[in-house]
């Protein structure tokens, strides 16, 4: 698959801090409308890689290409406008506002109405759309709760719904089940699959929970010490002796 066909391709991405090379010449591509995962032990460079895709960190060299367009030099908010939505490892919400307010804010941004100052926010955003998004992630009954009060699982769901409000081309999920109790991890995994199906977006995910990764991802890339050691279908990766040694074997 050429770089132009891929929803996202990373070409020779490298980042180092001082002498410490965190991400080493990583090439990776995500096919349109699929779920791809990056796994690796702690300190493998997953989060750095993610931040380079979302734009919080600039790579030393290499390119980030979104649907054929080189976005390496763009700011995070410019990338967001091009269709990259990120869910953070620790849920980032507007903590003093209600769940519905959070979604409404995201919708206003998505509709390019966040700068409007001549209408009330409630009238500028479609209430039905807010409800629909909350329902999509199963938070309809939490609409009026302040986001800072929600459970960890619900916080993640709310953040996913905020990302969906942007109708993203590429959804980045950084450890979506981190800090979430095991029984809720499966709920979130199912949610990710359903959301991908319904929206048709591409998903790139990092995850510690192997059950979640192998249940969700169609393509898995394994990072160790900043470099790719293996990539393929979940079955191929599971069978790879090097992966077993470096990562799965450690568990």
């Amino acid at each position, binding site marked *: 698959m050429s770089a132009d066909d891929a929803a996202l391709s990373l070409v020779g991405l490298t980042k180092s801090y001082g002498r410490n090379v965190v991400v080493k010449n990583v090439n990776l591509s995500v096919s349109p409308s699929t779920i791809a995962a990056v796994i690796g032990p702690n300190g493998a460079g997953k989060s750095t890689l993610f931040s380079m895709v979302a734009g919080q960190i600039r790579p030393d060299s290499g390119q980030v290409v979104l649907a054929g367009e080189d976005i390496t030099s763009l700011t995070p908010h410019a990338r967001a406008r091009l269709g990259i939505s990120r869910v*953070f490892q620790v849920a980032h919400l507007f903590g003093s506002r209600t769940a519905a307010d959070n979604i409404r804010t995201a919708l206003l941004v998505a509709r390019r109405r966040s700068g409007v100052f001549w209408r009330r926010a409630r009238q500028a955003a479609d209430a039905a759309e807010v409800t629909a998004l909350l329902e999509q992630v199963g938070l309809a009954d939490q609409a009026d709760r302040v986001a800072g009060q929600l459970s960890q699982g619900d916080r993640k769901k709310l953040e996913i719904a*905020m990302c969906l409000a942007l109708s993203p081309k590429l959804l980045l999920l950084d450890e979506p089940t981190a800090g979430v109790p095991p029984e809720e991890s499966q709920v979130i995994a199912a949610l990710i699959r359903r959301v991908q199906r319904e929206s048709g977006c591409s998903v790139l995910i990092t995850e510690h929970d192997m059950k979640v990764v192998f249940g969700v991802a169609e393509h898995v890339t394994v990072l160790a010490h900043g470099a790719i050691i293996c990539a393929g279908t979940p079955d191929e990766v599971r069978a790879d002796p090097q992966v077993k040694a470096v990562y799965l074997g450690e568990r």
Partner: protein
Amino acid sequence: MNISGTQLQDAVGGRDGVVASRRKPIGLWLTYALVAACTLGVFVSQLTGGSAPSFFLELILVQILYATSVNLLIGYSNLPSFGQAAFFGSGAYTAALVAGDVNIFFALALAVVVSAAIAAALGTLVVRTSGIAFANITLAFGQMLYLLVFNTKLVGGENGIAGVGFRPLSPTDFWILLNVCVVGGVALLWWLLKTPFGVTLLAIRDNPARATALGVGVYGFRLKAFTIAGAFAGLAGALFAFSIGIVTPDLLNWTRSGDPIIMSVLGGSKFFLGPAVGAMVLTTLVQHVGGSSAAYLLYVGGILLAILIIAPRGLLSIPQEIRRLLRNRREGARQPRIEARAGEPV
């Protein structure tokens, strides 16, 4: 982060939230009613009494507008500016410089435009930071402007400009204009926070990283907020100049930047009307406490300290503090008192 529901609602009281609007505490409504009644009472007595409006009442109104505009930055944007006197002073000096040549309406408009322009220019540099760094850099720029004015003979140097008159208005007409400007300005700022622009500002305050990841240009929003706050500070400054009739460099000094911050904290910076209440209380205290004693600020400081120990989130939070105490006492009978104050919202 352990934040209880009531505390969060307290913290965000007086804003456009689903929960807040439904459960807005009755105490807050009473305060609003009281503020409205005071304003109206003063207004009516001025119109019917026939006596000339006192400078003290005019000062309170000016401070209400000034403090409310500053709180757009402190309370709603996480941009604690310690240099708003630069814009208050710019407005005052602009008005003073043109007062002899043009009518007051044009002078006020020009003051707004000039202070907004200065705020926009400074803003391009300073809003790249937030929090403490922002406080420092705004303080620095504010003092630079102060020294510039202090040392510029063209604008009167350290003597300033005297004889600023509000031609062609009578004192009563000016009092009406002052009321219209202050009530109108505060209402505009209130409206702004209800709009998508205001909601996005609150979102940026809560979580800039999330806002950026959604595609919000945080820098642009902060710059606009800074410019708007500067414009309203400028309007307040110009009104002050007309009210007192003289402008001096100390209008730009850092103490004048500190006043609205103290007022916001005193009234409650998380309440929209907090700064207004703080402005009334602080201005009254400074005017009446200590009499002719040179140590009046010592007494004022002591009173402020006492108020903030009782109500750390400002005067408008007192009804909530009382309810919390009553609730704790009720529950305290059944279970040990724990974490009553845990998780102050940040």
